[in-house]
């Protein structure tokens, strides 16, 4: 899957999980930028992403992510 396809899908998932409209995607997006992104909705987000892309994240992978761009790269590497 192309990286732009991945980031587009991630944007939709974020809108859905964090209940925000018209989210402007950037690789640097993180929990600090979205009001409803707390530890619990983070887990919801991870599970939604796993389901949408058919991948599974380990706990250390989740803990190592600093922003959404890194997540897109991680998904890409898992799908390769």
């Amino acid at each position: 899957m192309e990286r732009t396809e991945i980031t587009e899908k991630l944007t939709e998932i974020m809108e859905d999980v964090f209940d925000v409209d018209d989210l402007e995607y950037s690789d640097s997006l993180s929990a600090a930028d979205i009001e409803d992104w707390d530890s619990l909705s983070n887990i919801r987000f991870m599970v939604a992403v796993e389901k949408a892309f058919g991948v599974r994240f380990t706990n250390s992978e989740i803990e190592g992510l600093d922003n959404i761009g890194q997540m897109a790269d991680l998904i890409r590497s898992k799908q390769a």
Partner: protein
Amino acid sequence: MSDPLSLPWLLPAPADFRARIKAARTAEDLDPRAATGLAAHALDLSQLGQLGRLLAARHDEFAGMGRLRPITIGIAATHTADLVAEALPGTGLRHGLLVTTHQVDYGQTAQALLDSKSSLAEAKPDFVLLALDALALGLARPFFDQAEAEAAVQSALDYVISLRDGAKSNVGAGAILHTLAPPVETLFGSFDARQPGSVRWMIGRFNQRLASEAIGEADMLLDMAALAETVGLAHWHDPLRWHDAKMPFALDAIPLYADHVCRLLAAARGLSRKCLVLDLDNTLWGGVIGDDGVEGIRLGQGSAAGEAHLAIQSLAMDLRRRGIVLAVCSKNEEAAALIPFREHDEMVLKEEHISCFVANWTDKATNLKAIAQTLNIGTDALVFLDDNPAERERVRQELPEVAVPEVGEEPADYVRLLAMAGYFEAVSFGEEDRKRAEMYQANAQRSSAMQKIGNLDDYLASLEMTCSIRPFDELGRARVAQLINKSNQFNLTTRRYTEGEVATIESDPGKFTMQVRLVDRFGDNGMISVVVFDKGDQAWRCDTWLMSCRVLGRRVEEAVLAHVAKAARAEGAIQLIGEYLPTAKNVLVEKHFEKLGFHFAGELAGGGTSWVLDLADYRLPELPMDVRSSEEAGQQRTGVLA
């Protein structure tokens, strides 16, 4: 079949779900019914959250609708229950409930329930969901001594019971208690089942004792063990989510779990469904009774489809035995629809099990309303099982409060989907339940008798029927021969003639022949009856009389008789003679001549009965149809045949 986690009995969420929620959130005039309709779909965790937030933001408008029962539920959990709390209000809408939740702080379960001044007590919940896990109950690690193991189970039960009592005396609420889901992992392997003190053994013992000893009158049991096993324990338990967030089960299972909690709450408020309304063709049996006949439908042992339909009937029968009322709503002629109930040996359901039987050509939404009225229950108490997606869609549109399981095309799936949907959730079972089906039946019989007296002719008139009758001719010959050779049920003599023989009859001046067609507002039924009489000086004898079962109950046979009687009179005859020759398939018409006013004239040698109509006594009937015959000049209006 789909995964239970995806709530497969519900329609998938609409693609524009988020847009609809957004529109509702900002709408000046919120339509709470439309928002409630969204809850009838299979929503995921995010969607339930969005719906829940809409509900919180516009609470008063939903409450003002007056159709939702408000209920407050306290959640006391020994693990993370925030996402469950978030999912409950949206799920509650699906069950007619306006749910408010009050969550006890993490680790404060005992304090909240044992203190009558706790914030939980002040929230005055109707029920408290006691979500305790095996770890908190001391049952997550094995004991290798039977006495210790029994003591651990006893102490877990004592703890649960003390919290339950606290809910009652300090909070004034009933408790919802959980059984525990067994673990995936064994210690010994299968031997765990035999080893007192293994986690599986202790959880099994705890669950059994909880169900029989710990549920007080105001309390309810949520059998989470059964739910987890239905999903599959390896799917249910998600060790990473337990370790990183203390989630007691996989996030994907939350919508299903929330649905089960809300079923219980709805049952406690008397909102469970009361009546299962069944379609017939391709639901109770395979095939179409009107086309295939009782010999042709698929039902019973010996074929996969036949057994699947049998299983559906068995489930319906078992539901009836526990007090669920059964009704039939079918697009069929009533007479044809009843044939399998009366004649098919493998039918589990008989006529007497159906409290309200509606088979006609009116649209099903209208019929469902009539069924609810007859049974004196609300349409929101109905579940409608139908294989036809168009019928399901129409009913959903017209009557969104009726539960319509999305059953798909495979009848083998119907039983599971219907059971999974949990429409008939109960929190008790008593003598009254056992008798309920009979009680409703008595009501329905009275009411349907009243309806029938008033309405049969009105109904027939509403069909706008035109019946045209003409003698055999070349044009109709092939179809006449076809009907003569294939009609079994409505066939008085079952005499078979080839097309050549039909041509001979056609040109024989000693025969009086009729081919009958019927058009109604639903379309042209084509040639539906064939009749041959042998003309005598004094008496005309019926050689052949057959009719398509599709038009039973339409009084077409009366139009046929009027036509032949008139012709016989005109030629100076004084009697019509009818004969019934029984076969394995034509018992339907055993009393045909009697119903038409003929007198019994004796048994026939070789089986059968003979009947006579004295033409002097015969009065032409008024019929709810336009009858046109080619022998008459011009066309005549309704009923004025004389």
